[in-house]
């Protein structure tokens, strides 16, 4: 399960991810991170059984945590199944099933590359 961590000013300089890993002993994969001097946005992937524990541990440290259940939406009325999104996505969210393009939304880390690459403008990020 992917979690979006919103790290606010004041705690952004602290080793939050490491301390959560030490506390929960969960395997946490950092999939995307955008951190500057004042705040940050980190997408992590955690095993389903550790998910709520990890979420709580982050929240205890003042991080706002959002579950990314459906990070990206493909509008099937607009999609023409060209497949341009397939080679653009770094995490392999899209694939052909027969001649149709399907999305495995759970893989998306919201990097936004595919949004502009889709000529039909059929893709949209669900921002939380």
């Amino acid at each position, binding site marked *: 399960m992917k979690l979006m961590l919103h790290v606010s000013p004041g705690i952004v300089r602290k080793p939050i991810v490491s301390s959560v890993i030490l506390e929960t002993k969960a395997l946490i994969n950092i999939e995307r991170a955008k951190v500057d001097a004042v705040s940050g946005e980190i997408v992590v992937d955690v095993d389903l059984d550790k998910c709520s524990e990890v979420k709580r541990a982050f929240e205890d440290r003042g991080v706002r945590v959002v579950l990314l259940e459906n990070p990206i939406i493909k509008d099937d009325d607009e999609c*023409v*199944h060209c497949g*341009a999104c397939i*080679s653009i996505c770094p995490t392999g969210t899209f694939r052909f099933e027969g*001649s149709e393009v399907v999305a495995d939304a759970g893989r998306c880390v919201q990097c936004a590359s595919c949004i502009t*690459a889709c*000529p039909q*403008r059929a893709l949209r990020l669900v921002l939380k």
Partner: protein
Amino acid sequence: MSEINERIRDGSVRVVTAEEMPYLVDELGTGGAVREVDVVTTGTFGAMCSSGLFLNTGHSDPPIKISKAWLNNVEAYGGIAAVDLFLGATQPSEDRGNEYGGAHVMEDLVSGREVELRAQGVVTDCYPRSELETTLRLDDFNQAIMVNPRNAYQRYAAATNSTERTLHTYMGTLLPRYGNVSYSGAGSLSPIPNDPDFEYIGVGTRIFLCGGQGQIIGSGTQHLPQNGFATLMVKGDLKEMNSEFLRGATFQDYGPSLYVGLGVPIPVLNEGIAKKTAVRDADIETEIVDYGVPRRARPAVRRVNYEELYSGVVDIDGSEVKTSALSSRHVARKVASALSDSIRRGEFLLTAASEPLSRVGRNSPVRQTKEFLLVGDVMSCEVVTVREEISIKEAARMIVGGTFDHLPVVSADERLIGMVTAWDISKAVASDKTSHISEMMTRKVFIASPDEPLELAARKLHHHRISALPVVDKDHRVIGMLTSDHLSRLYGRRRSP
């Protein structure tokens, strides 16, 4: 052919798609296929920028002679008679830019939506009105005739990108360092590869165009069949079309384009045609070209066939590169099967061409008659290079004594291997850490070639925020230097009389 049309009328016609045909020919041989199959249907659905729409709005009261017109803020050409307009698919809108364009207006009309027409007129005695604003649906136009100067390319080069930055092109988003390959075309389903010698396809051939019936009205612009790049000029009635087969699209940082669904039925009149319509994806070859080189003649990276492109990965210099299409195979199949269905229902008859398509065409570069400067015309040829063994002190001395802030560093055989700037030297002196330039030079140097247009080199300077480019020959030997100083001097000289 009249026999086939007879069978279409009485419902006994036997139709297969161009994807099924190779298997049939394998099984039955070409002779058997001629006996068993009457028509092979082809189809393609992809971005066809060279598309547009003639519209006749009807006359207003008092009448107007339209000189300029906009549909949903997309300009349409008004310089044809009084109320005829031509709307080009790639024209961007004035308010929404590239996200909405002529192609989207066409899709809106086909989908039954209203569009806003705004027009300016030239006042004459017979056309006293100067302005017109109204809301129209497709039905309100007297005629809405799609005329596409260049559609259905026989094949199209696939695109990749060798540079360090992402490129946004009409071939879609191209990731840096050969990050992906983007291609277009429907492979063995494409119309022209199934009739490459135009035995059936010709002027007047009835085709499936965006859900309606249209005609081939000639060879398309840039038609170059002698090199395997034939194109078609087609026309059709927008009022018969269907948005499943006609879509407005946007290529990021490029502009709008129209996705056109086009299919041609090919009668299996003899074994020769049976053989040609049995073409497979693996038989259709194209090139992968590097869009990182911003010139008309983009270098080819390798040859490739459509089977490889469809597989999702191709090999470029030993690494696997993902491929993806801009055109849709899914909808191309729908085009071919929709065409097959309307033939089976007896609604679509085949037509003999009134004239063949030309077997040779022309696609030459434009004759450029205005001054066109190349890097070689402007660069300095007196360039001082250094070897990587020299000390910082020596390098500093050369910069102080010379006219450049940049020293290209070359190997023993004079090839460019790096660059040192005055700024690098001050930094090194300040930090007191390094003593030889080999440790501090920039190794990834942006370069120019002498036959590169100056405009492109200027864009490189600007884009990478640098002030000088070493100019190298094809062996990577430094033959000159181009600096932002050259450009500003040139500009200053051109402006002052």
